[in-house]
């Protein structure tokens, strides 16, 4: 596609429910990143995919968070038993090769509110 897309754009859920966030990267990009951003703050790294593999899961905050990528394309970030502190904007980015100096192309994010 022309850019990175994410869905849903907004999600309101009740504490304890599970949520799935989707990312469609730029076609052909092998690298995919998930970040979390609290209001007006910097980016907190969650996980990095190279193809379908996740060589770096170090940023996942707890075992309630998981992510997968299929077909080297679409990725899903799942948060189980959501907590209020999970409320944030979840950003996805893709890159052509995964080299750290290359441009990361970001989606518009999913705004998650846990009540």
């Amino acid at each position: 596609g022309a850019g990175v897309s994410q869905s849903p754009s907004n999600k309101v859920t009740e504490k304890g429910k599970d949520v799935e966030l989707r990312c469609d990267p730029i076609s052909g990009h092998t690298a995919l990143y998930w970040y979390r951003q609290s209001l007006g703050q910097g980016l907190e790294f969650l996980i990095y995919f190279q193809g379908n593999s996740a060589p770096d899961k170090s940023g996942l905050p707890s075992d309630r968070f998981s992510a997968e990528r299929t077909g080297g394309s679409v990725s899903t970030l799942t948060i189980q038993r959501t907590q209020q502190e999970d409320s944030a904007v979840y950003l996805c980015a893709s890159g052509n090769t995964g080299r750290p100096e290359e441009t990361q192309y970001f989606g518009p994010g999913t705004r998650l509110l846990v009540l």
Partner: protein
Amino acid sequence: TQLLEQSPQFLSIQEGENLTVYCNSSSVFSSLQWYRQEPGEGPVLLVTVVTGGEVKKLKRLTFQFGDARKDSSLHITAAQPGDTGLYLCAGAPESNYQLIWGAGTKLIIKP
């Protein structure tokens, strides 16, 4: 743990003024990027600097990478309301593939 410290965290100035945003670390980076993020959108890359001492200009924006590749600055001349946004720096460590992100500088330019 490698850190990138950005300063100031918040800056509100009048249109036409000049400003500088700083990004500092005790670690060496092989490259450093600056992104701008507008409300409701993801960050967009402005520039990548890779050589110590490098200076890059993008219209009224001037980016500099420190000689030792540990710090960087972004200078905006004659700021415009359209420059309003969150400015983020991100460094690529020499020994790791993962970008290190600064906490961001929220910039507001008042007409």
